[in-house]
């Protein structure tokens, strides 16, 4: 098994008294796609922002270990971290409509990133931008390179953002719900694009989503998050074919099937899912609740398929 590219252990992120990420651990190997799923507010974005050192909220406390290529990112100086951001680890955000600075052309913004990390001429950076735009499927890139963000559709903007993220050939691409704001057809195209780019560039990808369908299409490994914790982790086949955590069961059942009715549904509960102080964060919504759930279950299991649930082993296999 190759060395992990990124290894996060016991990541904890607190905003004042609120714990958004509570002891999260996972790893990504080179070239691998990790799908991170979980509903809104489960801490997916915050944990990735924490990995990249992008949390600027005053009073936010981040602890744990984030080792990337042998270096602990949380211990790096600002300047060292800047050299990694955008060059070795790139990130794409949820909403392509607002992700680009409105007053500069697309090409300028791509060239800016290239020139932040490599000593190349303006001309060369622009040529690279055109090549990248072509690669992500923007028609007539020689002209479009001079367009402003508002002249692009949402799908085109997301393509432009992806082109920008890929401009320095990062070893790891973190994509935070890159398709959520787009219509279904465009979503499929963007996923296709990411898959193709991964084959061409060999980057590892962390794909954040709350859509199990997306995960099943693209991920090698799956991390299921709930209330700021990992509740299940394993290969795609394992998680989809023998899910072990009640929350994952619910997630899988909520994916619309082509035939047959939905089997189980998550009960809707008022309030937001957040990390409970003690105990299993999912306990309040769990139909299999036990007395032991008052205490948080550790993430444990065998051979790469882990889950955090007190249910006896035989009940975890459905």
């Amino acid at each position, binding site marked *: 098994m190759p060395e992990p590219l990124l290894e996060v252990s016991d990541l904890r992120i607190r905003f004042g008294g609120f714990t958004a990420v509570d002891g999260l651990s996972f790893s990504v190997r080179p070239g691998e796609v990790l799908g991170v799923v979980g509903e809104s507010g489960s801490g997916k974005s915050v944990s990735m922002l924490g990995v990249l050192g992008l949390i600027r909220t005053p009073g936010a406390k981040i602890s744990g270990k984030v080792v990337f290529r042998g270096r602990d990112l949380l211990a790096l100086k600002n300047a060292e971290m800047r050299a990694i951001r955008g060059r070795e680890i790139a990130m794409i955000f949820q909403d392509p409509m607002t992700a680009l*600075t409105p007053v500069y052309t697309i090409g300028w913004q791509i060239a800016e990133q290239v020139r932040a990390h490599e000593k190349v001429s303006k001309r060369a950076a622009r040529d690279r931008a055109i090549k990248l735009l072509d690669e992500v499927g923007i028609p007539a890139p020689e002209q479009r390179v001079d367009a402003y963000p508002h002249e692009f559709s949402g799908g085109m903007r997301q393509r432009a953002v992806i082109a920008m993220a890929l401009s320095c050939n990062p070893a790891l691409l973190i994509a935070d719900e890159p398709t959520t704001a787009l219509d279904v057809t465009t979503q499929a195209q963007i996923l296709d694009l990411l898959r193709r780019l991964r084959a061409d560039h060999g980057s590892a990808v962390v794909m954040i989503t709350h859509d199990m369908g997306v995960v099943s299409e693209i991920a090698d490994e799956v991390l299921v998050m709930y209330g700021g914790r990992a509740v299940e982790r394993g290969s795609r086949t394992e998680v989809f074919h023998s899910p072990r955590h009640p929350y994952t069961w619910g997630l899988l059942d909520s994916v619309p099937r082509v035939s047959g009715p939905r089997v189980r549904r998550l009960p809707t509960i008022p309030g937001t899912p957040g990390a409970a102080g003690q105990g299993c964060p999912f306990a309040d919504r769990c139909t299999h609740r036990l007395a032991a759930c008052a205490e948080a279950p550790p993430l444990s299991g065998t051979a790469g398929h882990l889950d955090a649930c007190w249910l006896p082993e035989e009940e975890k296999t459905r």
Partner: protein
Amino acid sequence: MIGYILRRFGAAVLVLFAISVLVFLIFFATPGVDPAARIAGKNADPATLAQVRASFGFDRPLPVQYVLMMKHLFVSHDLTSFVNRGTLVIPQIIDAVPVTLSLVVGAAVIWMVLGVGMGTLAGAMRGTLVDPLVMLLGVFGVSLPVYWLGEVVNLITQKQLHGSVFSWVPPLGYAPLSQGVGQWALHLLFPWLTLALLYAGIYARLLRGELINALNEDYVRTARAKGLSERRILIRHALRCSLIPIVSLFGLDFGALVGGAALLTEVVFGLPGVGKLTYQALQNLDLPVIMGTVLYAAFFVVLANAVVDVLYARLDPRVRRA
């Protein structure tokens, strides 16, 4: 872009025409008032009245009157003030313009530099002690009325400390550029600072708010994820976008000040500018002068607006299409 500029200035010309008609109607077509008596001033003798009536065509239809008035104003430049018997109005305004322009341009440079500097500093240093300190300074500037501050400045620099620290301060008044840049600037220094202080405070406060909003925008997060330096993110991304509303406000303020809104500063510092001219004309009910300055002010406000719109389109690609 060229098309946009042409369209914008075409619109400005139309607006100016509309304003001139409106001003004309207000001054001369108000029912129940004899416009000749207004122009000639209080207690004018019948001969003057008759002369005014003939030269402005007050016995002829309104459109003809309008054309005649504009001719007096813009072609023959011979609109006369009857209060100050025989003084021509237009040359008076033309003499006053450089004074006002000198005052406002200098103050504008100072307040933009101060305002943008303070606003950026406060916005970028939010969460530290610098932010509230700078903003306190801004509030201080905003809350001092120009006439009071001006009088205090005069008291100190012209009287109390004139014998010692401020012996280099020239007497109140204006020194044209023909007397040398040094004298010109020296005479205007305190008027500039006094006028600029108020606006610097307002602009700093506004920019700080804009900047803090911009720094929370998604595109700033993208810029950070790109690995740009904090300084570049602040200046090239956040500040660049925050300046857009500042520029449009600046255009309006600048236009209004050149148009006569610097009146208080001009009066306090004895600068014979447009504001002071208007002020005197109002005191004497000198109608031709009032009308002249109103039209002049309108001209500058409209012009400044047009320039701002063009600048705005340069700064913000999103409005260029419109």
